[in-house]
């Protein structure tokens, strides 16, 4: 009996300690020091580390949130073509293929000079070639559609329930090769399913996968770049994250810079 009481007491103490340790844990903050020091005015979107239809969704929807964040965004289509002609698309593909062989690797490994000096060198070269102050790399970690067959006969007959899942890594490198910002975000969206009338409505107003992909890409880009001010309209969730600092053409530029200065709270 004494042993049971002692065990329960230990459990209670353990629960309290663990519970309160979460409460008192210092919230991690993002170190914007290199970002503030570099103070980029312009952003070049680097050739995608993976090509394909999802790269197109991403590229079509990235300029607007970057520009609205207050940056000069190097013209996407023009620069993607120019850099492809200069051989950088191929180099981006090679970089990814060497990295891909490492099991469990992440895009963050790419900036590790001991493993992949190529990406940092590439950022410096691209900045020099275009005059950009910073270069944004994105890696599509995951982008898939899955038909959910667990919803029963009606759901799959009238309107397939489709799960869309996107997971992207972002990496912003300054013209001198400093890492300024990195972020990762995954978003899920489910279309279809639901009750009979929802099914009928969905079937009549069915968005194409392309439309959904574009909408999700737009949503992810906004989430990543603006972060704290944006909600995922499809899932209704807020995503706390560390946004890009606002650029020089944004009305909140000075205030944001002052807030992110080292030591400022």
């Amino acid at each position, binding site marked *: 009996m004494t042993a049971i009481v002692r065990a329960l007491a230990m459990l209670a103490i353990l629960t*309290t300690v663990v*519970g*309160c340790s979460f*409460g*008192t844990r210092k919230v991690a903050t993002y170190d914007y020091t290199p970002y503030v020091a570099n103070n980029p*005015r*312009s952003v070049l979107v680097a050739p995608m580390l993976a090509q394909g*239809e999802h790269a*197109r*969704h991403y*590229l*079509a*929807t990235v*300029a*607007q949130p970057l*520009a*609205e964040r*207050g*940056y*000069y*965004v*190097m*013209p*996407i*289509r*023009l*620069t993607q*073509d*120019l850099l492809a002609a200069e051989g950088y698309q191929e180099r981006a593909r090679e970089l990814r293929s060497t990295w891909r062989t490492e099991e469990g690797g992440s895009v963050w490994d790419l900036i590790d000079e001991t493993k992949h000096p190529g990406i940092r060198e590439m950022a410096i070269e691209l900045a020099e*070639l*275009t*005059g*950009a*102050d910073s270069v944004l790399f994105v890696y599509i970690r995951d982008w898939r559609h899955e038909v959910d067959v667990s919803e029963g006969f009606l759901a799959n007959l009238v309107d397939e329930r489709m799960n869309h899942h996107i997971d992207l890594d972002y990496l912003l490198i300054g013209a001198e090769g400093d890492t300024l910002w990195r972020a990762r975000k995954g978003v899920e969206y489910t279309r279809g399913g639901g009750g009979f009338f929802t099914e009928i409505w969905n079937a009549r107003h069915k968005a194409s996968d*392309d439309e959904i992909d*574009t909408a999700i890409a*737009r949503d992810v880009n906004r989430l990543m770049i603006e972060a704290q*001010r944006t*909600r995922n309209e499809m899932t209704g969730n*807020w995503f706390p994250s560390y946004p890009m600092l606002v650029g020089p*053409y*944004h009305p909140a530029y000075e205030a944001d810079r002052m807030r992110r200065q080292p030591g400022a709270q």
Partner: protein
Amino acid sequence: MRDVCPNLPATALVIVLTLTFAGLAEAKDPPRLYYWTTYEQEMYLAYDQPDDEDRQMKLAATLLRIIQKSDEAGRKPAPGVVAEYGYFLLQRGEYYSAIDHFRREAATWPESKTLMERMIRIAQAEAGL
């Protein structure tokens, strides 16, 4: 209790305030800095069907509409839009007009100067200037 878990009152307060204001936090999008019209849709379709002349023309029309709408309102066209239109003209062999647009982009956005000078050199070379 405070000694054991000093953040408890603050945590509770944050939770209450969060729940209270969650409904109010349906923040509207801030006013946009630039006109975009159907930029994203047309850009995607142009990327998706690069050999479809109609899609390329629609993207060009969208870019031109953004430029005209911005001019009418006395605002800067969004970053890159004038240059993208210039690039469209370059691809069609309208070199002089392309150069004019690259120059305008550089004058509007000093950050683009290096890139636009490069594009002007490319256009001049293709035009045999």
